[in-house]
């Protein structure tokens, strides 16, 4: 018993010593911190944050679960259910005045927001763009770093895209789209 105790103490001592020594290296903690930055370079950080939509003070982003959003902004004026074939999950479309939210089943989220579509000028993006704004106004609000094809201006950010469909030089539709779920 005594032997074990002594040896245990020895181990604790060794461990402590190594910890203390590590603590000694704590002065270099800043280095360690920067090292963290070095790591971040390996796994790009801040990739998940794309553009978010805001409604009644609640920010809504694609690729997140719909349930907490509904809890905050209330039930939609109507809800449409579109089951996929062969029991592979169900898509939902929640219609609110001025916009709709589409959900799809994702890997870990049963009902993940796949898209947010602004359909009328009752609502606008946090950056102040809505149906009827001109292309120039979109550029003023979001910059010119976008791609354009067939009248769709696309701002890619993180794992989502923000689309502005331009018709007759004004915004016809605003679409927050998840990359993975569309």
């Amino acid at each position, binding site marked *: 018993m005594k032997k074990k105790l002594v040896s245990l103490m020895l181990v604790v001592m060794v461990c402590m010593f190594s910890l203390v020594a590590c603590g000694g290296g704590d002065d270099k903690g800043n280095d360690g911190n920067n090292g963290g930055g070095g790591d971040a370079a390996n796994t790009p950080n801040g990739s998940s944050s794309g553009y978010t939509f805001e409604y009644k003070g609640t920010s809504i982003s694609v690729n997140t679960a719909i349930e907490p959003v509904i809890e905050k902004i209330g039930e939609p004026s109507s809800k449409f259910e579109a089951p996929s074939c*062969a029991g592979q999950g169900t898509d939902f479309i929640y219609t609110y005045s001025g916009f709709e939210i589409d959900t799809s089943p994702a890997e870990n989220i049963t009902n993940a927001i796949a898209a947010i579509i602004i359909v009328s000028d009752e609502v606008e993006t946090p950056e102040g763009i809505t149906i009827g704004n001109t292309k120039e106004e979109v550029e003023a609000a979001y910059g010119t770093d976008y791609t354009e094809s067939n009248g769709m201006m696309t701002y890619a950010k993180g794992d989502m895209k923000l689309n502005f469909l331009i018709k007759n030089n004004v915004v016809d539709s605003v679409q927050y789209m998840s990359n993975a779920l569309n």
Partner: protein
Amino acid sequence: MKRKKIFWRRFLRVTVSGIIICSMLFLLQRLLVPKYSVGTQDGAMIAEYYDDAPKHNLIIIGDSEMYENISPLVLWQNYGINCYIRGSAQQLIWQSCYLLEDTLRHETPEAVIINITSMQYAEPQKESYNRMTLEGMRWSTSKVKAIFASMTEEESFWEYVFPLLRYHSRWNDLSDDDFRLMFSEEPVSLNGYMMQVGVKPAENVPEGRPLADYTFSDTCYEYLDKITALCKEHGVELILMKSPSVYPVWYDEWDAQMKEYAQKNQIKYLNCVNNDEIGLNFRTDTFDGGLHLNVGGAEIYSNFLGKWLQSETGISDLRDDAELSKEWEQKAADYDAKKSEKYKELAMDSDDS
């Protein structure tokens, strides 16, 4: 002498152990592959086709908008059309194309209907859908081509050749059915029709979101061209069809493209979206809020389709064929039995809730 003996002993060992291992693998595979007939029935019909006599004068190829919306019994009873639906969940256009190629190996119908809803998908959608379409196909070059055209990045050809590799961890959720149906599955469809009896009215149907580009992809057109060529080659009348539904949206721009394509290639295109002639009521005739028809809706739609086929293509009436008539008598009985059984289940379900 001794060497010879050793050789034979080795030979015997290798052969016997080879046989044992192979039969173990075979049994395991039969046990572990999912049994579509008791699970996801949407994957069962592709294989069932081969059990029906290849004497169809109409073949319908497509996704759930085909196998849930058209009742072959109505087509037979009212119009004498002997049809089979080669349907599978989320069937993509290249899969339809290779299914057509596969079918033409077995028989040459008078007409083929292809569902063109899938023209909107240029990429494979999901592994599980691929499996439902491809696993039931008999091995042929068509199947191989279909697999390579369909695979998502995570899939491997070998896992289609040896499904055991794909389903190896299903031992975790085996049921009695997996043992019972190891060697033969139960038929689930009637000539490829999957009956649905529920009613869920279409409400609050959303408008489709505007798209930047409505043009179907070149890949899809390539396969559509291939389908057209195959039908021309075999002297089969090709009909492109969009089944009646209120959702997902079938955009006018899409409709226009198909119209143009049909005109250019001198084939028929039948768009049944918002077609009042059919007489469908989407408050009563759909089981999922307007995506697909229930049996009532399917019978109404099939009547319309039969009439249309008769007048537009002059498809023959086979009711004179005694053998076929006899087969269909049996099928009609099965159909009615299934219908009443399903209604009973439905009534019980609604009682429960």
